[in-house]
């Protein structure tokens, strides 16, 4: 696929560019902040940063409606924020607070926000393909014009579910869009060592899915490619594959010793291609230095507010550990509730810190 939307009038284009830039700066500020607070010990678990890849999240989600779905990866902060989840709800989730978007049960790697169609980051590489195929199938079954977007990395394209789901979406002509963030590394292993092709997009051809390769540092290029793909999916034209050539400026996870690449490589790529710098340059005089600074200031204020919110929020009640796996497990009339209540009763006598003196006499 080579055709893209005709660029809108330049004023609208400028406004779009500023909106994309704002999203990218918010993602950058959020992730630099996550890094800082993770290293300070305020964020438990694992966290994976997408610094360098912000143009993909921003350019993609700017084409989507709130009722369109996305599925994300373990590196999903940018997608989540770009799809519309408030920073407070995200940061509180990462801080493992009850006010987090997943009540503190998901964390960075399993953050989701169904109110904006964000079907979840996923701790399993390639975990999102089926969810997106299903969301697209659901739209087709329910006869809506919703679309579903799967974000994934180059590493995921070496797993079976990638191939099974691309084929399924193609053969059923589902409104699914596959957005590859080719950041050159699968965890710590270079793509050059794990596949023999230069463009992963050629794999889409094997399933009869049209593919386009775009500069993933260029937010406008991503936006335009996705605009065409979304329009195509919405009008019943079926799936599209968009390969965004990008780069992961941080390690696989926060704390990664990065023994597999030289620091100079990261510096070279970022000094030449930082997507925020690139977009600022593209916008030129359309964005004054003051306005640029103001976007950064606002993003930092938003993040500081989110951290203050998270810090002042309570941890989940310990008893919450026992609830939520099943629909019905909070309903005393439900069979699942009754059996899980018995399991809790059997467990609690051995867990005095959970504060139940009752002995597990289950019948």
């Amino acid at each position, binding site marked *: 696929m080579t055709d893209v939307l005709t660029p809108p009038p330049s004023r609208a284009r400028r406004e779009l560019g500023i909106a994309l830039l704002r999203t990218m700066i918010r993602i950058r500020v959020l992730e630099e902040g996550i890094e800082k607070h993770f290293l300070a010990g305020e964020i438990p678990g694992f966290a994976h940063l997408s610094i360098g890849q912000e143009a993909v999240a921003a350019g993609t989600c700017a084409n989507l409606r709130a009722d369109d*779905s996305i*599925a994300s990866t373990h590196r999903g902060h940018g997608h989540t924020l770009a799809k519309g989840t408030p920073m407070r709800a995200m940061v509180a989730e990462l801080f493992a607070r009850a006010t*987090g*978007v*997943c*009540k*503190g*049960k*998901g964390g960075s790697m*399993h953050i*989701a*926000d*169904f*109110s904006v169609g964000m*079907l*979840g980051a*996923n*701790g*399993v590489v390639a*975990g999102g*393909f*089926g*969810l*997106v*195929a*299903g*969301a*697209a*199938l*659901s*739209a*087709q*079954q*329910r006869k809506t014009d919703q679309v*579903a977007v799967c974000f994934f990395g180059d590493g995921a394209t070496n797993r*079976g*579910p990638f191939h*099974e*789901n691309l*084929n*399924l979406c193609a*053969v*059923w002509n589902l409104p699914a869009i596959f957005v590859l963030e080719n950041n050159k590394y699968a965890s710590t292993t270079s793509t050059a060592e794990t596949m023999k092709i230069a463009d992963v997009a050629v794999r889409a051809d094997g399933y009869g899915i049209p593919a386009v390769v775009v500069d993933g540092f260029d937010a406008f290029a991503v936006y335009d490619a996705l605009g065409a793909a979304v329009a195509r999916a919405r009008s019943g034209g079926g799936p599209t594959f968009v390969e965004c050539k990008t780069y992961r400026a941080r390690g696989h996870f926060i704390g990664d010793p990065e023994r597999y690449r030289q620091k100079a490589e990261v510096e070279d790529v970022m000094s030449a291609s930082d997507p925020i710098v690139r977009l600022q340059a593209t916008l030129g005089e359309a964005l004054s230095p003051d306005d640029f600074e103001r976007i950064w200031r606002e993003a930092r204020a938003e993040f500081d507010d989110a951290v203050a919110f998270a810090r002042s929020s309570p941890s989940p009640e310990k008893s919450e550990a026992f609830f*939520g*796996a*099943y*629909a*019905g497990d909070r309903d005393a009339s439900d*069979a*699942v509730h*009754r*059996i*899980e209540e*018995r399991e809790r009763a*059997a467990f609690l006598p051995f867990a005095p810190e959970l504060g139940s003196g009752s002995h597990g*006499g*289950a*019948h």
Partner: protein
Amino acid sequence: MPTLSFSDATLEAMREEMRRDPTVFLMGEDIAKQGGIFGQFKGLPQEFGFDRVRDTPISEAALVGAGVGAALTGCRPVVDMHFADFITCAMDEVVNQAAKLRYMFGEQCVVPMTLRAPDGITKSAGSQHSQALESWFVHTPGLEVVVPADAEDAKGLLKAAIRSDNPTLYFEHKALFPQRGPVPDGDDFVVPIGKAKTMREGSDVAILTYGITVGRAMEAAALLEADGIDATVVNLRSVWPLDYDAIADAAARTHRVVVAHEAVRVGGVGAEIAAWIGEHCFDDLDAPVARLGAAHVPVPFAPVLQEAMYPKAPMIADAARRLARREL
């Protein structure tokens, strides 16, 4: 009450639920044009169209994954696994996705997906087409697991599984498909998940079982009757949630319990039940719980080997007899 084959009872359940709820749809291999390898889907695409009854590629991971995605976004998919053994090709989708998402995401979503999984030993299907795998899924929080024993269960549990907001595995034994039995009529008939059914009451010994082994236990009870031993047979119907009230009740009434299933004995559902009885019904017992299941080997091909390695009526009767006579 009309009499139906187990297969037709599942078909009636599908038909009623698809009429009742337009978001219910069905997908799997060989189901639409072929009607299913056991004829269990015959006529459905003619009534509901090939969009709601979909033939699929041989892509179990995609089918279950797409089932989860559709369930998250407003549909009630039913995914046919062809053979239960092939769930192994979609374990991530069942265990890491379907079972976990509601909990991990702080209850923002439900996953109302039904997996139909024809299982069990029949006709020398061999090691890769004969397994009973329910205990794996009982061990995974977030899933419901039901195992129909007869045509009545087949209809009522399938309807309950489809209506459940939780991901539900429905293990249907291949050898049961042609068996006929009475099935209550009407859309409103549903077998509640988590509720056992006492098939027969006797005071000497209780046989707790589910699925195809219920029939074998009933045969065993007839053999025991000839020896003057009166057996209770409990059809558990659901293996998660288990009906612990029915289990405790049977232990309290008979003081001697046999737990039996076709799945491998080691680490099986019977182990959970026996342990639970030990924890909660110790004072009711006059004897240790006897636990029967398949031998800890793959299911063999040769009929003579296949028939030797799982519990049937004589083995169940023998265990019950020895319990009743205090030989165990």
